[in-house]
């Protein structure tokens, strides 16, 4: 028996009606009577000492309510922004996390660093007043490139981080790897740059801070992926207000891609200032500010080497990476190039030994943190570019080389040399499906045809793996995480049978209101129209960890299932009482409770009503029908699959035309195939953006951001993308009750490696991202 709109149904997203009719509630839609407007004066310099800030003229400007500087926040006892994951260096020392004040104190360290917060009756008045602030800068020589920043003699950005080093981390058995390399028949090498990206969610960050002087409560509406984490950090580390006096609401949020996980200076300053002036304050980032201050992604420089025997079997893998942290350590920045990266370097392959070392350092650039995939795209890019290089060196077909080295479907649980335990999968199945979809065997003929037409054709594969469902709290705790990564849920029946689901996950485009409702519909037989999913308000939902790392369904969904299980358990007792049977004889399916071997049955709605109107009710049972649950995952989940890209390059222009794309992804069980397909499309689009178009560039000498608008930062558009051939393989995840693995990041993880391998295959030489027409043309026309 299946349920309408239940698990596995491609239900249209409930939330889209309000989004596409303009009835959503984004930050810009929320305003208060008497609201003032905040504007940040930002540093135009990449690196400078501040010798003086003169606010005299600005404070006298029309409409100005007040102007705050870093000194004001320090004087008020406001703490600095924190990094929530401690990384330990090779030598046992903790990572260097220099002070990070919301408003600059004494120095600015990247273009866009906050210098002062101007609050006025109107935004224009605030901007005009900011023009009158006189800041005396002593300009210093900046460094923006991570390799240069870590080299001797580089400008010193923080006193607390000598040599600009944040940490020098390692994972794996170096001695075993070195020994394997010493005896290897073949060694392949590659040098890679993983280009820095700007996240570009459609809705820029924004904040509305309010203070109620009567109750002494602060309310912050903000564009957050994890409002409880924001509240926790603002309360415990910045001292904005105790948690019980601080309410954080993340309403409809227009995309995040990771960039809205973090606790930023602007939101923090806005809520603090609201109390200082006892008046609501609104701050909204414009797109220019977003480029300057939303945490960037990637920015790795890596060298990798692969050791193989005579048969092309992999013996060992070693990787050395430099990771750019930007000017300050963002909320989870330290974890991205370490435990979200190094732990995935085994890819889908049986590799006896692996060693990775990562030097993370500071530069005069915007902070770098998690961006769709977070560490796992970087790992996949290194592993999969490496595999193609090795196959080329061995004159083997890249897919044959991979198939030869894959972890086999009977090998689970499989423990990698980099501390992950893969729980399930079928890598050869996905690869063979992808090859079939794109007619891999017919490539040679298509290449010949392209050649006849004066074009260069290439095909490239990426067999990615990611660790999602973040994360088992004990595991991440032992690796330095400052928080647990469980999730919460409450399933609350209303007396008349409708259901409200409260989740600690946060939806900012993922479709939770639909997917989670489908779980309830399936499990409890409630029509999805009667299921309301509430998220994003610390005063409404139980403490939750939020949405990132493709965790919402695997962790948040599992918490809902746990709560549903409690509902069912209680309902059985009520049903047994009402139908005069023993609890053991009550059977439950999709919200129908029946007495085994009889035709007696009751629906969930009837039972919920009885629980709220308990006139005839078990004596030892509490009335009401609401259960909450906290779910801490037992393991990561391991979505994996193969993407194959086929390109045709015009040698006259260097333009890369993506002519075909096949993706076979193993996401475990799937609740809503249409949403999953949308996630794959979006992820691949972002991955293609990274590979072909996007790249944050700083001027080497001045440290100025020169890709600060859509004139210079190129986002993928519909006509840059092919039609995708998409399928899924579904080996259920054994560690969570839904058997789901997560799908939100897969496309962005797989796509850059697949596409770059295709381009390298076409060109016959290595090239770094983004493969712009100019770069490709130069590669074609160089020796």
């Amino acid at each position: 028996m299946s349920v309408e709109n239940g698990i596995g149904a491609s239900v249209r997203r409930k939330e889209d009606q309000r989004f596409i009719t303009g009835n959503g509630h984004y930050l810009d839609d929320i305003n208060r009577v008497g609201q003032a407007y905040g504007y940040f004066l930002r540093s135009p310099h990449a690196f400078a000492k501040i010798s003086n800030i003169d606010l005299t003229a600005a404070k006298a400007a029309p409409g100005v309510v007040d102007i705050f500087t870093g000194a004001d926040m320090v004087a008020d006892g406001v703490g600095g922004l924190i990094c929530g994951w401690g990384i330990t260096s090779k030598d046992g020392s903790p990572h260097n996390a220099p002070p990070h004040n919301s408003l600059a104190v004494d120095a600015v360290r990247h273009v866009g660093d906050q210098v002062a917060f101007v609050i006025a009756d109107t935004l224009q008045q605030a901007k005009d007043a900011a023009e009158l602030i006189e800041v005396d800068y002593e300009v210093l020589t900046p460094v923006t490139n991570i390799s240069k920043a870590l080299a001797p003699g580089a400008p010193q950005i923080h006193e607390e981080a000598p040599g600009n080093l944040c940490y020098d981390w390692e994972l794996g058995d170096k001695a075993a790897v070195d020994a394997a390399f010493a005896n290897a028949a073949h060694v392949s090498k590659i040098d890679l740059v993983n280009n820095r990206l700007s996240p570009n969610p459609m809705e820029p960050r924004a904040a509305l801070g309010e203070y109620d002087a009567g109750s002494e409560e602060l309310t912050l509406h903000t564009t957050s992926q994890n409002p409880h984490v924001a509240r926790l950090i603002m309360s415990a580390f910045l001292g904005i207000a105790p948690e019980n006096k601080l309410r954080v609401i993340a309403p409809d949020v227009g995309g995040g891609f990771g960039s809205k996980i973090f606790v930023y200076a602007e939101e923090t300053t806005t809520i603090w200032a609201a109390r200082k002036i006892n008046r609501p304050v609104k701050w909204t980032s414009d797109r220019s500010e977003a480029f300057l201050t939303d945490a960037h992604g990637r920015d790795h420089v890596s060298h990798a080497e692969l050791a193989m025997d005579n048969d092309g079997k992999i013996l060992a893998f070693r990787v050395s990476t430099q990771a750019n942290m930007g000017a300050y350590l963002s909320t989870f920045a330290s974890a991205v190039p370490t435990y979200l990266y190094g732990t995935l370097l085994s890819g889908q392959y049986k590799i006896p030994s692996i060693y990775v070392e990562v030097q993370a350092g500071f530069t005069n650039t915007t902070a770098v943190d998690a961006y769709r995939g977070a560490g796992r795209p970087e790992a996949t890019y290194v592993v999969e570019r490496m595999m193609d290089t090795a196959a080329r060196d061995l004159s083997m077909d890249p897919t044959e080389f991979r198939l030869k080295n894959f972890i086999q479907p009977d090998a689970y649980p499989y423990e990698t040399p980099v501390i992950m335990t893969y729980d399930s999968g079928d890598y050869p199945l996905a690869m063979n499906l992808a090859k079939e979809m794109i007619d891999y065997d017919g490539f040679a003929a298509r290449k010949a045809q392209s050649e006849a037409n004066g074009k260069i054709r290439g095909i490239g594969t990426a067999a990615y793996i990611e660790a999602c469902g973040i994360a088992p709290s004990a595991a991440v705790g032992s690796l330095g995480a400052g928080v647990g990564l469980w999730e919460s849920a409450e399933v609350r029946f209303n007396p008349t049978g409708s259901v409200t689901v409260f989740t600690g996950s946060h939806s900012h485009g993922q479709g939770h209101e639909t997917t989670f409702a489908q779980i309830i519909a399936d499990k409890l037989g409630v029509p999805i129209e009667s299921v309301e999913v509430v998220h994003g308000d610390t005063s409404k939902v139980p403490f939750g960890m939020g949405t990132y790392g493709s965790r919402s369904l695997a962790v948040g969904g599992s918490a809902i299932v746990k709560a549903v299980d409690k509902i069912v358990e209680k309902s059985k007792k009520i049903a047994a009482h009402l139908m005069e049977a023993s609890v053991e004889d009550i059977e439950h399916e999709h919200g129908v409770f029946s007495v085994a071997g009889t035709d007696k049955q009751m629906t969930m709605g009837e039972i919920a009503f009885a629980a709220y109107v308990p006139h005839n009710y078990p004596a030892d049972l509490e009335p009401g029908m609401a259960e909450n649950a906290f779910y801490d995952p037992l393991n990561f989940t391991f979505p994996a699959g193969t993407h194959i890209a086929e390109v045709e390059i015009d040698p006259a222009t260097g333009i890369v035309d993506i002519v075909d794309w096949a993706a076979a992804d193993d996401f475990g069980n799937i609740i809503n195939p249409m949403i999953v397909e949308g996630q794959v499309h979006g992820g691949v689009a972002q991955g293609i953006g990274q590979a072909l178009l996007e790249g944050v560039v700083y001027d080497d000498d001045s440290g100025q951001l020169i890709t600060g608008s859509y004139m210079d930062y190129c986002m993928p558009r519909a006509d840059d993308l092919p039609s995708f051939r998409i399928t899924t393989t579904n080996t259920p995840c054994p560690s969570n009750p839904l058997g789901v693995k997560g799908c939100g990041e897969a496309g962005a993880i797989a796509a850059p490696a697949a596409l770059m391998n295709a381009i390298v295959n076409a060109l016959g030489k290595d090239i770094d991202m983004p493969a712009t027409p100019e770069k490709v043309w130069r590669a074609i026309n160089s020796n």
Partner: protein
Amino acid sequence: MQMSGEELINASRAEVWDALNDPEILRQSIPGCQSVDKVSDTEFAATVKVKVGPVSAKFNGNVTLSNIDAPNGYTITGEGKGGAAGFGKGGADISLKEVDNGTLLAYDVNASVGGKMAQIGSRLIDGTAKKLAGEFFAKFNELVSAGPEKPSAEPLMAEDAPASEPSSVPEASATQEKVAPPPAPDAEKAASPDWMRPAILIPLGIVAAIILFYLAGD
């Protein structure tokens, strides 16, 4: 941003010299120039008001002269602040040479921009700087060839540039108090750098106009 070039000025070297000494000619040649104030023999403060498209803003700048080798050449370094627009800083080597049909003015500009202008307009600065330089020299040439007594009243691209206002509006008082970098030793040796005083506005005006050009496109 780097830009170099040569302009043939349709006048004798002495006339070009005089023109470079004539603040009124330079003020008219440079879009929106309002004032120039001497801080010391080698340091100046200037105000340039520029309107490009819908954007109008005022630029305050400090300029220092060095490597003075009158009358053959000198180096100008300067910095202009445009508030929210960001800043521009840089320098130019300028030299004058007598040729058959006039005077050859050679320039070699090295400028950088920061803040919003760098963020929004970096890609197009080179092209725009060349265009603006071309416009400046066309006007300068016209004025010098015409003689100092009949300067044009039409500003080049600053629609509301105060072409008919007095040439020395003392507007940049705050800017004047700014500490300019110490002059280079060469500059100190030059006893009378008067001749190039107004010329400092050439790169400054170009930078200011570029900034506003891109703000207008924001």
